[in-house]
C-alpha cells in the first residue's frame, strides 16, 4: 500500500518461489559441498589415493562453476525479487537485521575468496594450506547459512521479538536451531547427490569409491531429516501446525500433497542410496543419479513451500501480512480507506469497478490472479454486489491463509463490485432443488459443505420454512457469517435444498 505494485499478471510470490528454490538448492550444495571437498581431499591424502584426488580436483571446478556463479547470483536475485514483490517486508527485514546482513556479507566475501583460491591453487599450494583454505571456505559458507537461517526463521517465528524488538530475540527464535540442523542435513544430502553427479564422469575404478563415499553423505543426511523435521514441527506456532494437522476447516490440499511429496522423495532417495550407492555401487548410473537429483529438489522445494505456506496470512508473523500491509496499520486503513492511505490508488467516484480493480491489485494480487494461479473468477461466479462487499469482512474465516481486508465500507463496496464483475451470473436451476444447490455453491460453499468435512451443514430433516427464517439472522447465529443476500426465491430454494439435500 505504501509502494507501487508490480503487476506481473500472476502473483509475485511465484516469482520469488522460482528463484528461491533454485537458489536454496545450489546454496545448500555450496555449504555441504565445501565440507565434502575438503574431507574428500583429506581422505585422498590419507589413503594415498591419486585417483580420488583427481576426482576431487575435477569436482571442485564443477562446484565453483555452479555455486560461485549461479548460486551466488541467484542469492542476490532473491533479494532483488523480494524487494520488488514485498518491499514493505523487505524494508522491515533490512532494518531489523541490517547488521546481520552485514555480518553475512563478511562471511560471503570470505567464502567466495576461499572458494576461488581453493579451486585455482591446487598446484600452487601445499596440501596443508590448501586443506586449511578448504576449511575456511566451509566455515564461512556454513556461517553464512547460519545467519540467513536466523532471518528466515524469524519471519515464521519471531518469538519474543514481537514484544522486545531486540535483534537477538528475533534472530535466535523458536525455530532457529531445528531449522539450522535441517538445513545442515540437507546440505550434506546435496553434497552427496552432486558428488554422485560428477562421479558419473569418472573412470569406473574411482567411480565406485566416490559413489560409496557420496552415498554415506546422502544416507546420513536423509536419515537425520525425519527426526529433525519433527523437532522443527513442534516449535512451530500452533496456527502453523494446524495447516499440517488438518485442524483448520479448509482442506489445504497443497500442504498435504507437499508433505506426501517430500516424504516420497526422501524415501525414494534413501532406498536408491542404500541400494545403488552403499550396497551395489557398481550399479550406480546416470538415471539413478538423475532421480536422486529430482528427489533432492523435491524435498528441498517442498520444505521451502511448506515453510512459506505455514506462515500465511503473514509474511512476517503477526507483524506484516502476506499482502505487505502492516498489522499495526490495518485499523487506520479500515478507518480512513485505502485511497487516503495509499498514494498509488485513486478513488473513482464514477466507476467503482475501476477503483475496485486497483484495490484488487493492492489487497489480493500478491496471492491471487484473475484467471491464472489461485484464480478469483471461478470463486466469484454468481456473487451479487452486497455479498461481494460483505464477504470481504470474513476473509480469514473463509481461509485461514487470508489476511483480513484492510479498507473502509466504500473500499469493500468497490472491490466487491469488481469481483462481482469478473463472472456475472444469476443463480439458476431447472427446478427448485437445483436452484437451491446453485445458491448454496455461491453463498455458503466458501465455508461450508453438505455431507463433507468442511464445516458441514447438517440440516437434513429441518423444516424448510425454519431454515428460510434462519437465513435472515445469519449474523446473529454466528457473527463470522455474512448476511444472506439472495432473493426470497433463492432463499426458499436454498432452504429446500438444505432441508433435503439428498433427493
Amino acid at each position, binding site marked *: 500500500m*505504501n*509502494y*507501487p*505494485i*508490480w*503487476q*506481473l499478471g500472476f502473483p509475485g510470490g511465484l*516469482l520469488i518461489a522460482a*528463484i528461491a528454490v533454485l537458489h536454496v538448492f545450489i546454496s545448500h550444495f555450496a555449504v555441504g559441498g565445501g565440507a565434502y571437498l575438503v574431507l574428500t581431499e583429506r581422505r585422498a591424502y590419507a589413503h594415498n589415493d591419486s585417483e580420488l584426488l583427481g576426482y576431487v580436483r575435477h569436482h571442485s571446478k564443477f562446484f565453483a*562453476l555452479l555455486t*560461485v*556463479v*549461479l548460486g*551466488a*547470483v*541467484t542469492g*542476490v*536475485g532473491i533479494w*532483488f*525479487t523480494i*524487494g*520488488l514483490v514485498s*518491499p514493505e517486508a*523487505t*524494508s*522491515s527485514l*533490512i*532494518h*531489523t537485521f*541490517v*547488521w*546481520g*546482513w*552485514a*555480518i553475512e*556479507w*563478511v*562471511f*560471503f*566475501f*570470505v567464502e*567466495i*575468496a*576461499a572458494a*576461488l*583460491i581453493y579451486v*585455482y*591453487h591446487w598446484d*600452487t*599450494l*601445499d596440501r596443508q*594450506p590448501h586443506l586449511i*583454505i578448504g576449511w*575456511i571456505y566451509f566455515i*564461512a559458507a556454513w556461517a553464512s547459512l547460519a545467519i540467513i537461517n536466523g532471518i528466515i526463521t524469524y519471519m515464521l517465528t519471531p518469538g519474543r521479538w514481537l514484544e522486545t524488538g531486540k*535483534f537477538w530475540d528475533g534472530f535466535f527464535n523458536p525455530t532457529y536451531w531445528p531449522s539450522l540442523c535441517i538445513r545442515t542435513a540437507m546440505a550434506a544430502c546435496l553434497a552427496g547427490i552432486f558428488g554422485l553427479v560428477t562421479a558419473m564422469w569418472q573412470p569406473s575404478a574411482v567411480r565406485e569409491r566416490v559413489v560409496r563415499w557420496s552415498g554415506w553423505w546422502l544416507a546420513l543426511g536423509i536419515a537425520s531429516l525425519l527426526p529433525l523435521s519433527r523437532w522443527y514441527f513442534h516449535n512451530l506456532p500452533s496456527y502453523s501446525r494446524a495447516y499440517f494437522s488438518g485442524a483448520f476447516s479448509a482442506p489445504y490440499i497443497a500442504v498435504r500433497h507437499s508433505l506426501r511429496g517430500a516424504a516420497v522423495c526422501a524415501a525414494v532417495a534413501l532406498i536408491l542410496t542404500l541400494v545403488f550407492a552403499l550396497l551395489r555401487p557398481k550399479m550406480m548410473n546416470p538415471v539413478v543419479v538423475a532421480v536422486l537429483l529430482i528427489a533432492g529438489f523435491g524435498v528441498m522445494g517442498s520444505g521451502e513451500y511448506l515453510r512459506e505456506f505455514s506462515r500465511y496470512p503473514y509474511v512476517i508473523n503477526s507483524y506484516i501480512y502476506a499482502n505487505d500491509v*502492516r498489522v499495526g496499520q490495518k485499523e487506520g486503513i479500515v478507518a480512513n480507506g485505502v485511497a487516503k492511505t495509499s*498514494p*498509488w490508488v485513486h478513488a473513482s467516484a464514477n466507476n467503482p469497478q475501476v477503483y475496485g480493480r486497483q484495490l484488487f*491489485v493492492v489487497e489480493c494480487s500478491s496471492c491471487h490472479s484473475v484467471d491464472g494461479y489461485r484464480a478469483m473468477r471461478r470463486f466469484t461466479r454468481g456473487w451479487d454486489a452486497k455479498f461481494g462487499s460483505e464477504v470481504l469482512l470474513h476473509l480469514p474465516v473463509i481461509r485461514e491463509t487470508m489476511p483480513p481486508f484492510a479498507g473502509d465500507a466504500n473500499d469493500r463496496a468497490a472491490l466487491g463490485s469488481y469481483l462481482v464483475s469478473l463472472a456475472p451470473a444469476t443463480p439458476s436451476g431447472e427446478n427448485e432443488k437445483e436452484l437451491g444447490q446453485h445458491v448454496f455453491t455461491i453463498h455458503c460453499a466458501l465455508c461450508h459443505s453438505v455431507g463433507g468435512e468442511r464445516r458441514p451443514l447438517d440440516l437434513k430433516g429441518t423444516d424448510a420454512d425454519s431454515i428460510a427464517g434462519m437465513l435472515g439472522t445469519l449474523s446473529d447465529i454466528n457473527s463470522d457469517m455474512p448476511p444472506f443476500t439472495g432473493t426470497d426465491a433463492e432463499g426458499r430454494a436454498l432452504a429446500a435444498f438444505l432441508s433435503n439435500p439428498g433427493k
Partner: protein
Amino acid sequence: MNLPIPYADPMPLPAPIWLLRTLLLLTFFLHVIFMNCLFGGITIALVCALRRKGSSFSARLAGDLGRLLPSIFAFTITLGVAPLLFLQVMYGQFLYASSILIGVPWLAIIGIVILAYYGVYFFSMKGEHGMAPVVLALVLLLLASVAFIYSNNFTLMLSPERWLDLYHNGANGWNLNWSEPSLLPRYLHFVLGALGISGLGLAVLGLRQKEDGYRGWLIEQGTFLFTGATLVNFAAGFWFLAKLEGPARLAFVGGNGLGTALLGIGLLLPLAAVAHLVMAKSSKSPNRQLVIGVSCGLLTVAVMVAMRDLLRNFALAPYFSPNQLPVVPQWKIIVLFLVLFGAGLATLYYMLRKVALATMIQAAAAQKLQ
C-alpha cells in the same frame, strides 16, 4: 503536488548516519574499482582476442585476463552487495519504488549477470577458441546493458515526480527512465570512467611483471587507455553537469562549498594522474611516477563516489534526508560486525599471503631448474 513517496520504514536506523554513509561509500568505492576493471578488462580482452595472432603481447594479456576476470567478476558482485544493503537502509523507500517501476529490466539484471559471468568463464577456459571474441563482445554488451539499467534506476529513484505517470502507463514494470535529461551523459560518464580505470589496472598489472618488454607494453597501453578515456570523459562530465536539474547543478558550481570543492578536485586529480603516468616514461623514477599516477586515478574515483552521493542528497533534498530518521544504534552488534569484518580481512590476508608465498617458491624453483 502530492508525490507518491512511500513513508520511511517505521523502525529506527540501527546505526548513526555517518557510519552507514561511510560504509556505503567505502564499499561502493571498492565495488566501482572492481566493476571498472571488469568492464574495461573485458573490453581489453576483446581487443586482445582479436589481435591475438598479430601481437604476442596481446595474446599474453588475453591469457592473463582470462585468469583474472572470473575473480574480478566475483568480487564485483560481492562488493556490490554491501553498498546495496546500506543504500536500502538509508534510502530504501526511494529505491524500492523506482525498482518496482522498472521491475522487468531491474530483475533482468540477475539473468544478464549470470549469462555474462558464464561468458567470462568460457573465455577463461577456452580463450583461444574461435568464438572467444564473439562471446566477449556479447558479455560486453550484456554488462553495458546492466550498467544502463543501473543508471536508469539510480536516476529514477531521485525523481518521484515521474513515478505516478510511469506507474499508470506501465505498472507491469516495462519502464525505463528515458525522460531523465542526465541519463545518457551520466551513463556515458560512468562507462568512460570504467574504461579509464581499467587502464590503471593494466598499468598496475604491468608494474607487477618482471619481464621488461611485456611490462613496458602493459604500462604504455594502460597509460594510453586511461589518458584517452579520461580526456574524452571530461566532455562527458561537463555534458552530465549541464544536464543536471538546476539546483543540483548549481550546488556543484558555487552553490554548495563541498560540492564545488569536490568538483574542482575531481577535475584536477585526473589531470594529475595523466601527467604522472605520461611523465613516468621519461622519469628517472618511473615506478614512483606510476604509483602516484595510479593513486591520483583512484582518488579521482573516491571523489566521484562522494560527488555521486552528494548529487543524490541534493536531488532528494526537497523531499527527504536520512538525517530526519530516528536512530537507535545497535552498538553491540555493530562492534561484532566490525570485529568479524576485521577477522574477515585477516583471513583474506592469510589466504592471499599463503598463495603469494607458494607462488614465489614455485617461481624460484622454476628459475633454479632453468
